[in-house]
């Protein structure tokens, strides 16, 4: 197990270095930030002065080295707009995004687990077909559209929930459902496939032969084994979930790190975008590492093989 974890850690470091390079490089492709920072009537010397001030006049490798050596200490410089530390700004906006992502994950599991198991147990029945249809519809529905539809129905027509904002449990309902609906279909299909596969295994027959009740067979023997691919995919989907959070946060005016990132990209506020990209990527990498370790913990075969 120790060797397995160490191998995963080395991979993590390589990935993080790659991410930092990408985060550094991407924004240089976009355009000249000085043009956007200064008013339209600024003179040529003003531009040159700003370029020097921000270190944009130096060679790229020097800029990257400076960026990377400061970034490991959590210092991405100050936001070019707010004049406050970029990393602090990103950290500050982290909790709402984490709540939203967890709530979305919760909703997705609440939908996906029971429906997936049900569909698997009653294969090719009406319930199964209905679940398939729901999954296809859910997968095809743009998250943006669903969010706005929910707002129109529950906020504008029924006036049951606040259309947007953050602060009370009512504010959580629509965003969490929107994000959950985004993740639920694929999870449900996986649970279904996993349970179907496991139900045909010899050990299930053994369990049944031993006289174990059908409920116990499904929950204890089948579900635990069917969980492994589901957990792996959920880990992989975590990045997707954060991506979905960007859209969800924008629609519902959710004050999270995703809205901050989108706004910073629009403003070409380099330090904030870089801090956010690196932090989010780091979270995704760590979540995936945890998933790998968790799967290894649940399924001894994996860590032995590694």
């Amino acid at each position: 197990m120790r060797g397995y974890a160490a191998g995963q850690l080395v991979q993590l470091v390589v990935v993080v270095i790659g991410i930092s390079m990408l985060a550094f490089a991407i924004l240089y492709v976009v355009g000249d930030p000085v043009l956007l920072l200064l008013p339209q009537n600024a003179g040529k010397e003003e531009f040159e002065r700003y370029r020097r001030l921000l270190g944009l006049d130096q060679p790229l490798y020097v800029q990257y080295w400076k960026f990377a050596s400061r970034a490991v200490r959590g210092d991405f410089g100050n936001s070019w707009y707010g004049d406050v530390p970029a990393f602090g700004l990103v950290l500050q906006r982290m909790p709402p995004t984490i709540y939203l992502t967890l709530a979305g994950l919760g909703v997705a599991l609440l939908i996906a687990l029971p429906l997936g198991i049900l569909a698997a147990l009653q294969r090719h029945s009406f319930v199964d077909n209905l679940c398939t249809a729901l999954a296809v519809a859910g997968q095809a529905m743009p998250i943006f559209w669903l969010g706005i539809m929910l707002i129109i129905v529950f906020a504008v027509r029924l006036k049951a929930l606040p259309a947007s904002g953050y602060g009370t449990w009512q504010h959580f309902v629509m965003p969490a459902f929107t994000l959950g609906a985004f993740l639920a279909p694929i999870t449900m299909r996986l649970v279904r496939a996993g349970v179907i596969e496991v139900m045909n295994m010899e050990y299930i027959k053994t369990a049944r032969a031993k006289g174990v009740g059908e409920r116990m067979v499904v929950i204890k023997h089948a579900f635990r084994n069917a969980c492994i691919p589901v957990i792996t995919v959920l880990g992989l989907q975590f990045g997707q979930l954060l991506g979905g959070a960007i859209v969800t946060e924008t629609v519902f005016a959710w004050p999270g790190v995703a809205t901050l990132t989108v706004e910073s990209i629009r403003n070409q506020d380099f330090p904030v975008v870089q801090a956010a990209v690196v932090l989010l990527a780091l979270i995704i990498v760590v979540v995936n590492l945890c998933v790998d370790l968790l799967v290894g913990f649940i399924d001894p075969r994996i860590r032995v093989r590694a």
Partner: protein
Amino acid sequence: MSRSRLAMLLLLALVLALPDAPAAQTKDDTVVYAFQSDVDSWDPPNSVLREAIILGYQVFDHLAVRDLKTGRVGPNLATSWRALDETTWEVKLRKGVRFHDGYPFTAAAVKATFDRVLDPKNKLTARGNHAKIKSVEIVDDSTVRFKTDGPYPLFVERLTAQVMQSDKVIKEKGHQWMQENPIGTGPYKLVRWNRKQEHLLVRNDDYWGAKPAFKYVRVRIIPETATQIAELISGGVDVIKAVPPDQMDVIDKSGQARTSTSPILRTAMLQLDQAARSGPNPFTDRRVRQAANMAVDMDAIIKYVLNGLGDRVATGVNPMAFGFDPSLKPYKPDLAAAKKLLAAAGYPNGFEVRFRTGLAIVEPGVQQTNDAIVADLAKAGIVAKQNLMGDVGPYVAQVKEGKAGPMFNWSWGYYSVFDADAILYDVFKCGESYSYYCNKELDDLIQAGRSTLDPKKRTEIYVKAQRLLFDDAAYIYKWGLRGVWGISNRVEYAAPRDEIDRMFIVTPRRK
């Protein structure tokens, strides 16, 4: 500890970390206003954002303000002003005004405010607005004198763009503190700022002017336009701005809210490269430019494509700007005359030209109006090939560097200065970054308009300049833009012509 208990504890920790419920203010005493994006600081001179200017108006006061009905600049914290000579302005200040912290507003505050802004070391954005001011002198507690670098006719106009900050705060608290703690003399005080989420303001009950009707103002940050409209219709927000023209019906038919439009200080045009900055092109010939202006039926486009959201102009000068000549009538569509002019210029069969276009960020419906204009031009034989550039930064850079080509979309917001000079100098003067026009005669007029304080003389000069620009058809002239606001039926309010929303004039609607 069992695994399930650990999970329960984690869940509990998360629940406890959830944010507090909002403050105990009720819906009836609160007006809610929405922004698409948040400000970067609460120090208006240190921001390039219009949102910062708008927030500044709620909490700070200016020496002079624009009257929304007449459009004229009138007294505010200054009670009067006069020019002592060509380069000295004397300003009398209102007495008995106090900042939110109780400290009195005097000439010292005016001097400290301008000294802070004008000092290049402080790197404040607002410095450019006041660069013509050389120094500020205190005469007595309620009188200040401004020395300017040459005659400065825009002096009073520019007073509306500078909030008055406290000399005590500037000296004792300093720049960093001021970024999040606005101490003004204005109608509202800041209670709380949750970045990217909302601002809560409370009425300043010691305000020297008319008391606002609503005790609280909530400014909510809602990035998505569709969500803003949903909030407006469902009663979550009272005032939104920048409503897209195609969404006006949704709001007007909701029964919960209405739209209000106002002309704003921005004129749209198609710039032609008369100065040949991007190289030789047909538009260096005046007859071709005139033909282009006659080929397009702008009035029809405003009416049918823009839903009436435009005010036709004869030149680039906006009807709201000082010096505008209302007697000058725009070009009338005349296809036969246009063809004749083109033939005379050596293009009997017309010509093909690249037309650089941009996104509808500042100009609503620009793609649709471009299509209509291109269709009209084609009838006269001018085949404009549209070439979209989807990013504003590079677009502006190209224009600036003289690489935008023979014909391109452009609109001008006057830096919010209601004066003909604010467009003539930047967009029509020879050699300026955004000007693709070069005419010595016009340059002399622009210079003359800048060198006198006499409004009558200046008006005469600008009337001449507009005639010249019309006759010479510098660019294809389009229209002055209109902004669209969405307003809840719960409140009385109307779109402001300077695009600065003032929540302190919003009142509850009588039922």
